[in-house]
């Protein structure tokens, strides 16, 4: 109220109105012991709305759910008309709402956001005639110029430019220019007009410059070189000068980062983004007050169409770290302002440690006393438990572990500071499971929820690795481990730790990527070696096609072939064409880059496919290939292309190894079986010269090659592929000459041939 004389009259009227409500409220909430049930329908904008809207929603939901003396049933709907403007003209939403709430007609409607209010007003008679409407988050000009039906009341959003500017001039009396950074959209227009009026009052002290027509990047460039006797006033931007939609809080952060001079803001969340401060609107308070309006409407009170939030109650907040960054003296801070994010003193920073140490000492004294005077073993046990807990706490913070305890019955989660940082949750905010779950990456959410459910249902441990997404879009990998504590067979609480494993996961992903890349390159080389045989393999069906077609053409000229014969020829042509296509497809498949995606496949099929591809190579090497396939082999989970590559490698190696023995002894035997349990095996055996006797395993080393043209990568990569499939690949000299390669893979749960 300090600056009342400076305010415009209308604002004063609103303030008085607000005072009037609070006086009314002071009479006490309308108690209704056996209150009849009241239905509240809240109509929101879009479900993924800007953080500000979300905070309003949270404030509203919290206020509605903690209403004393009311028996409320609250429903929520997201109309999302901003993004689906066409919907407000169609009757679908109206029909939907009527179908849904026809039998439970709401006693009050709460509409948030301009478009929603507009919709409700337009369709009021079809929807819920006569039901009172309370609105918020609405541009007041929408309402002011308009004839409102009865029973419509609302709250508009106002920024406190006045006190924010006063704060700026108080902190920086040398200021000569206020640079207003804002957007150019329809949304910002009323705010900007309001700001112009207020700035007029400071015209004698400071100049005003508007950065509202520039693209965001240009604005950032501009604020980076402002003269030191200027300040920035940031009016929340929804759309930049280039018409690009932006996130207002994100812009606050970018501005604070880029600006050479302090940035003053108008809403509380901006403080966290690095602005220096201002008279800041807390969005959840808007939700709160909207709920208060709804209660008064439910109590039968008649309200004015438009109420203003009491901007005098917006706290004056200053970001201590921003103060330091922009070298603004702390001495000018007014007594009414609150300092946030102040760096804590040694005591503040290490209070826990100091307390813990002191407590440990104290408890040790107690222990000694207890031992001496009472000899109580129970106490000793308790003490060492507590001690170990403290030590664990210290160890946890040293190991960067976030600790947490979830009170399952009340759904409250206590988290250490490190734990909060992992999830990107501000200190002091209340945390429940839903809040954590909301931060989990959508793709991992179901799995994490399932892991928690599993831990709660089957008394046990919770262990899970998942991604979290911070509000700034940053993604981190978290490993969570926990244990459920039960009482009377019911889960009471879960304690656990979380660890940031992003770097490890990234390293793993990078390693997998490199392995896939290397495997691909080696596959290309392998197919290059095979290209002669592949040409042969293709020429075979092509030859059949051409010759068949030639025969048919010749017969056609002389009309000598029966229709039956003709059909046979054409069918053979089709079959040969398909065979050629199949060969090309499998080559193409092998040349494809894969990302290691697994599917369930039969080992026999994979081998058979590779044998078809290498048929000509077998001929060229005069090798006879024999197969001994297990008829009911369990399938395996594998990247098919990479598994094909492993067998292609083994098969070609076997052919190559056969070179040195007489033709009639050149055989390759491929055998598959399984141990009846969890492991499937395949063996590729040749009758060649065998492995180097002194070190058979050397063949799996990088750059080891017996072939003159070989790069020595084949088996090295084959083994790393198999290892990535949780299998093994090893080699030995076979009895009776030659070598055999054993590949073992875990069987998939699915049984099949």
């Amino acid at each position, binding site marked *: 109220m300090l600056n009342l004389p400076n305010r415009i009259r209308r604002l004063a009227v609103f303030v008085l109105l607000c005072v009037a409500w609070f006086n009314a409220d002071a009479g006490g909430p309308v108690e209704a012991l056996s209150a009849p049930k009241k239905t509240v329908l809240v109509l929101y904008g879009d479900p993924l709305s800007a953080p500000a809207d979300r905070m309003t929603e949270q404030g509203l939901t919290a206020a509605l759910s903690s209403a004393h003396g009311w028996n409320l049933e609250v429903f929520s709907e997201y109309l999302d008309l901003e993004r689906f403007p066409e919907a407000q003209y169609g009757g679908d939403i109206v029909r939907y709402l009527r179908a849904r709430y026809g039998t439970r007609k709401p006693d009050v409607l709460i509409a948030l956001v301009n478009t929603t209010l507009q919709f409700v007003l337009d369709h009021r008679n079809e929807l819920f005639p006569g039901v009172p409407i309370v609105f918020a988050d609405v541009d007041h000009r929408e309402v002011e110029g308009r004839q409102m039906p009865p029973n419509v009341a609302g709250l508009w959003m106002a920024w406190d430019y006045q006190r924010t500017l006063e704060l700026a001039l108080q902190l920086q009396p040398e200021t000569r220019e206020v640079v207003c950074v804002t957007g150019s959209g329809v949304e910002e227009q009323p705010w900007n007009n309001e700001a112009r009026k207020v700035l007029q009052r400071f015209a004698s002290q400071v100049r005003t410059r508007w950065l509202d027509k520039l693209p965001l990047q240009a604005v950032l460039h501009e604020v980076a070189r402002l003269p030191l006797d200027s300040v920035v006033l940031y009016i929340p931007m929804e759309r930049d000068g280039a018409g690009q939609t932006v996130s207002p809080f994100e812009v606050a952060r970018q501005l604070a980062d880029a600006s050479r001079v302090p940035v003053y803001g108008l809403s509380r969340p901006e403080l966290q983004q690095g602005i220096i401060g201002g008279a800041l609107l807390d969005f959840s308070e808007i939700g709160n007050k909207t709920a208060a309006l709804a209660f008064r409407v439910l109590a039968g009170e008649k309200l004015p169409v438009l109420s203003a939030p009491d901007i005098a109650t917006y706290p004056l907040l200053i970001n201590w770290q921003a103060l330091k960054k922009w070298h603004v003296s702390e001495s000018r801070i007014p007594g009414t302002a609150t300092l946030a994010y102040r760096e804590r003193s040694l005591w503040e920073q290490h209070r826990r440690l100091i307390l813990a140490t002191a407590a440990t000492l104290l408890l040790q004294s107690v222990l000694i006393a207890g031992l001496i005077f009472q000899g109580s073993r129970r106490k000793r046990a308790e003490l060492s438990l507590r001690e170990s807990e403290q030590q664990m706490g210290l160890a946890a913070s040293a190991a960067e572990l976030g600790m947490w305890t979830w009170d399952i019955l009340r759904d409250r989660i206590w988290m250490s500071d490190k734990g909060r940082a992992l999830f990107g949750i501000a200190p002091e905010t209340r945390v429940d499971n839903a809040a954590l779950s909301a931060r989990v990456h959508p793709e991992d959410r179901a799995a994490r929820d399932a892991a928690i459910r599993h831990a709660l249902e089957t008394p046990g441990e919770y262990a899970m690795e998942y991604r979290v997404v911070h509000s700034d879009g940053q993604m981190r990998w978290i490993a969570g481990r926990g244990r459920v504590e039960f009482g009377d067979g019911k889960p009471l609480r879960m304690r656990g730790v979380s660890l940031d494993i992003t770097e490890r996961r990234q390293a793993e992903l990078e390693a997998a990527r490199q392995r896939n890349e290397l495997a691909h390159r080696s596959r290309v080389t392998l197919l290059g070696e095979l290209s002669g045989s592949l040409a042969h*393999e293709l020429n075979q069906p092509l*030859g059949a096609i051409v010759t068949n077609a*030639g025969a048919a053409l010749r017969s056609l000229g002389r009309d000598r072939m029966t229709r039956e014969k003709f059909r046979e020829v054409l069918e053979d042509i089709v*079959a040969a064409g398909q*065979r050629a296509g199949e060969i090309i497809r499998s080559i193409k498949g092998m040349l494809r880059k894969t990302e290691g995606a697994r599917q369930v496949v039969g080992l026999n099929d994979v081998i058979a496919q590779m044998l078809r591809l290498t048929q000509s190579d077998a*001929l060229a090497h005069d090798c006879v290939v024999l197969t001994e396939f297990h008829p009911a082999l369990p399938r395996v989970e594998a990247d098919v292309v990479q598994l094909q590559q492993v067998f292609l490698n083994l098969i070609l190696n076997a052919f190559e190894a056969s070179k040195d023995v007489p033709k009639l002894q050149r055989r390759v035997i491929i055998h598959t079986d399984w141990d009846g349990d969890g492991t499937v095996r395949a063996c590729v055996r040749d009758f060649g010269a065998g492995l180097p006797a002194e070190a058979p395993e050397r063949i799996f080393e990088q750059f080891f090659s017996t072939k003159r043209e070989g790069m020595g990568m084949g088996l090295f990569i084959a083994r790393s592929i198999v290892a990535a499939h949780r299998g093994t690949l090893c080699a030995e000299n076979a009895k009776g000459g030659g070598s055999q390669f054993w590949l073992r893979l875990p069987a998939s749960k699915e049984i099949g041939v």
Partner: protein
Amino acid sequence: MMQAHTLVYVIDDDMSMLKAIGRLLESEDYSVEMFTGAREFLARAPHTGPSCIILDLNMPGLNGLELQEALAERGRGEQVIFITGGASVPTCVQAMKAGAVDYLSKPFRDEDLLCALEQALTRSSEQWLQHSQRKEVHKRLATLTPREFDVLKLVITGKLNKQIASQLGTTEGTIKVHRGRVMEKMGVASVAELMILAQRAGIAPASADSTKV
């Protein structure tokens, strides 16, 4: 000499190729026999008449080149046309050196195959003709007594009965009888004809010394 029946063999392990070639040749009225492997072919009794083998080079077991070699060892005169899916220069050279008529890469034009086949069959017919003639001459030669054979060898040198008689140490009259029997048995009317037959049978005229008794 009667015209013998000509036959074309096709040997390819690829069934679809084998059938296609069979169809092409039958549409051109050739008699065709097909085999999916070289060993099956070798198990068959050789054909008596002009013949040609259309032979796939790359086959399991005995491959094309090896079959060609095996035929040569057995003294069989079938003409060979090689067909192959992947041609390499060294195998091509080896095949042609071993007497192949042609070497075709799949897919080939049917005219090319038919043209090569005609050439092969012409060559085979000529060969067959020579072969059968030689066989006939040998058959007739086999009916001669050793004395008659000696006389024949001297007759084709162009000697007179008197000279032959003196060389063999007998009378001119005896030689005259022998000579008449030789001409009759060999089915010729003149010394010139006899000389041609002898040449076809590869009988060298006797030299003055070697026939001296």
